[in-house]
Structures are given as C-alpha cells and as structure tokens.
C-alpha cells in the first residue's frame, strides 16, 4: 500500500457538485463542496434532511460520481470505491447477508483475498473489537439492532480500512444502545487511528464524537459552517457532556443549522 505522507489530507473535495435530471428537470443535490479531511480525524457531518449528507458520503466513498469538481482519497481521484475506504450503512438489516452467520458476514470482504487461516484471524479480531466474539456463529436475525450494526462495523473493520464512512449508523437505535456504540466507535478510533467520516442528524452525537463538524445547508447541499470541537479525548458520556465546551459547541452547531435553514 503506497503511503503518501506528503498528502496531509486523506480526503479532499474541490468544488464538488452533483446534479442529475429528473423528468427533464435538472436537480442539484450538491454544490461547490470544498473539504479537506485530515488523516486520523473524526469528522462529523450534520444537516437537515435533504441537504445531501448521504450523497456527499457516497461521493467520498466512490459509490456515486460527482458531476463537477474533484474528489481525492490519499491523493488519488475517486471514481469507484477506493481500497482503504469503506462505507457503513444505516439500514443494517438490508446491508447484512441474512443467510450468512455473523462470522461469514464479517469475512465477506476478505474472501478470495486471504487464505482461510488469515481470514479467520481477521474475523476474530474484528469481532473482538466490537464485542461480538461470542456471537460468531449466530445469524443476523437472531441479534438485536445494535448488535447487527456492530456486525456491519466489524465487517468494515476486517478490511483494515484507513477511512470509515458511516451514514447515520446509529439513527435507528435506542438511546442506550446508541451511547454504547458511540463509545465503541471512539475506542476503535483511538486504537486504530482510522479516519472517520460520520453522518448524523443528532447534534449531540456530532459534538460528542467529532474533532470537527461540517454543517450542511441545502438543497442543493453546501457546506454552511465548519466547527472545531476542542473537547479532550478520551471522551466520557457523563463528564464530556457536562463540559462547558460541549454545551458551547452544541449551541454553535444548533445555531448553524438554524442559520442554514433560513438561507
């Protein structure tokens, strides 16, 4: 794998736009997105629905092509999903292969690339990282929503990615499960140094997890504001959320979303 330390930013978007025509009418989804995401950064994206959050993530992950501007990952233009960047979807029940066991779901991206022993080792390590080592033989439908989402995260981690692109991964989970998974993702971030791009519509979640927050406005989606989160790590569900800085950031994001909506 070519390490490009001369590229300080792992993702770059320059003037990225995306539009398509719907029944003859041009529809602009993204407009003039300029963005640099640093290696190892936890970058969160918030915005009202319809501001193109998901589309932006799909463009970064190579699942959708921008119709204008340029996207690069590790300095290389992104046209297809690049090696080293993997997307985790919100709808885990559709994203998992219901006919495969947990371990075989996690192995999916490794098959044909590693021998059986190496695959098994990676699967075990990934499942351990998300606390599912006891559920390797279970099937997705036997697990709770939170556990299913963990399987999807483990499947992405098994590839040893440099960047994880997560599309509202905890949007469908209850508050308690959500808090546990947030801490798990933070732990993975601290342990592996993986870059995270994380979409959410939950302001507190964006602040709690992120190093930086992009607030989108739209449609068409644009970056309205970038907010730095100067909270120390490791973060803690009780202490971090009581810090004055946390409240200040939360207010800043809230104001930015309000202002973005008035545009």
């Amino acid at each position: 794998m070519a390490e490009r330390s001369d590229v300080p930013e792992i993702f770059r978007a320059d003037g990225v736009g995306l539009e398509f025509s719907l029944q003859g009418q041009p529809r602009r989804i993204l407009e003039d997105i300029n963005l640099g995401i640093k290696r190892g950064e936890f970058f969160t994206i918030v915005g009202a629905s319809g501001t193109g959050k998901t589309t932006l993530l799909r463009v970064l992950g190579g699942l959708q092509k921008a119709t204008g501007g340029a996207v690069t990952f590790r300095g290389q233009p992104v046209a297809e999903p690049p090696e080293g960047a993997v997307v985790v979807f919100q709808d885990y029940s559709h994203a998992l292969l219901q006919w495969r066991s947990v371990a075989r779901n996690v192995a999916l991206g490794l098959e044909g690339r590693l021998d059986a022993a190496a695959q098994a080792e990676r699967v075990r390590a990934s499942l351990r990282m998300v606390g599912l080592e006891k559920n390797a033989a279970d099937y997705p439908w036997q697990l709770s929503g939170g556990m299913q989402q963990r399987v999807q995260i483990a499947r992405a981690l098994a590839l040893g990615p440099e960047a994880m692109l997560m599309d509202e991964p905890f949007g469908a989970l209850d508050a308690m499960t959500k808090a546990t998974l947030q801490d798990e993702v933070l732990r993975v971030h601290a342990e592996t140094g993986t870059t995270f791009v994380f979409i959410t519509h939950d302001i507190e979640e964006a602040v709690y997890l992120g190093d930086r927050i992009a607030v989108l406005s739209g449609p068409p989606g644009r970056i309205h504001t970038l907010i730095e989160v100067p909270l120390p790590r490791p973060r803690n569900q009780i202490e971090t959320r009581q810090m004055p800085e946390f409240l200040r950031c939360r207010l800043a994001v809230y104001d930015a979303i309000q202002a973005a909506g008035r545009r």
Partner: protein
Amino acid sequence: MRQLNLSGTLTILLVLAVWEAAIRSGLVTYEYLPAPSAILVASWTLLRSGELAAQTLHTIGAVLLGWAIASVVGLSLGLALGYSRTVRTYLEASLELLRPLPGIAFLPVALLIFNFSLSTELAVMIFASVWPVLINTMGGIMSVATRLHDVARTLRLTPARTVTRLLIPAAAPSIIVGCRLGLGTALVMAIIAEMLGNPHGLGYAVVSELQAMQPERMFVYVLAIGFLALALNAALVAASRLMLRNRG
C-alpha cells in the same frame, strides 16, 4: 417426518368405497369405467410384468433430463437478463414474443425436425419449462435490494463474487420457486409429448392402453403419473430446503 393425515386418508378411502359400490351395485354402468378393485388387480399385473416400472423410468429420466437442461438455460439467461440492462435491451423483445407461445404448439415443429424420438420430447419440455425458471431468476436478481449492490461495491467484491456470493443467494428463494414450477411444466409436457410425439413412457402407455380398450390398465398409468408428480415435487421441496440452508 410429517404425520399421516388420518382424516384426509379417510376421505379418499370413502370416495373409493362409494365408487366401488356404485359400480358393483350397477348404479353406474359406463362400459369402460372400471371399479377400484379392478384397477388394483391391473396394477399388480403391470408391476409384476415390469411394464409399469419400465414406462415410469423412461418418463422420470426424460423429465429430469429436460428439466435439468431447462433449469441451466433458464438460470443462465435469467441471471444475464437480471444483472445486465444491456442484455435486457437486446433480448427482452424476442423473449416477450416467444414466451406466450404455448409449448405444445411447438410439438409439430419438433416432430418435423427430430421425428418420433426422445429429442422431440425433450425439445417440447425444455421450450415450455425454461420460462418459469428464467422469469423467476430474472425477477429475483432484479429485486435484490440496491443496498446489497452498495455493500458489494464498498467491500470491492469482484463481479463474479458479487453474483455468486450475493445476488444468487439473495435471489435463491425465487430461483427455487422457478425451478419447482419448471419441474411441474416439464412433467406435463413430457406426458403430452409421449402421447403424441415419442412412443415411450407413461404418456404413451396411457394412450396405447386406451387404444387397446384396457381401461383398468389405462387407469393404472394415469395414477402412476399422479404419484410421479407427487414424488418429484416432494423430492424437490426436500432438496430446496437443503439448498436454502447452505446458500453462498
């Protein structure tokens, strides 16, 4: 194992008893309608002489062969059509033209080309039973959730792996439905083709006993066709359970 359905069996026995009684008492007097007991005697004769086994074996062999070919063809075409929009654009018109054509209308053509032979029987069977497999495979592949396509792409699966590990297993339930429908069609077409085009097997036996004015023996073959259909379907249900448990 399923338990024997006692009440259902009783109904059948009752119908047979009424039938037997109606004929013995002279209440019903069709010249060529045999009593169940006469059919039972005829089955014993045909079993002992080996005729029943020989004809049944021919039909089973023909059905399995024709169905297997139709399934492979239907599966391959269905996969290509379901996977590729380009293939759909080129082939859909021809398929829509051919599909409504009843397979049996094809029999004279097949006869002309292949004469009275197994090839004629197979041609008619394959033409008719390829459709359910093809249509269900295509539909199954096309309705695989778009999310799974995203998953395949973001995990950078090769196209071959996407098809074998994701699309086919995800579409397996409807592919199996197609194969089951195809097997039923194959059996029907085999019997018709044997009656008209290939002088072998159970269909031929029914017609030749009819011409020989042997209604008891004719009934034996008719019943044999019914049992064959039941057995083939049961075998396929068992096989498909096994397949669904071990998919991709």
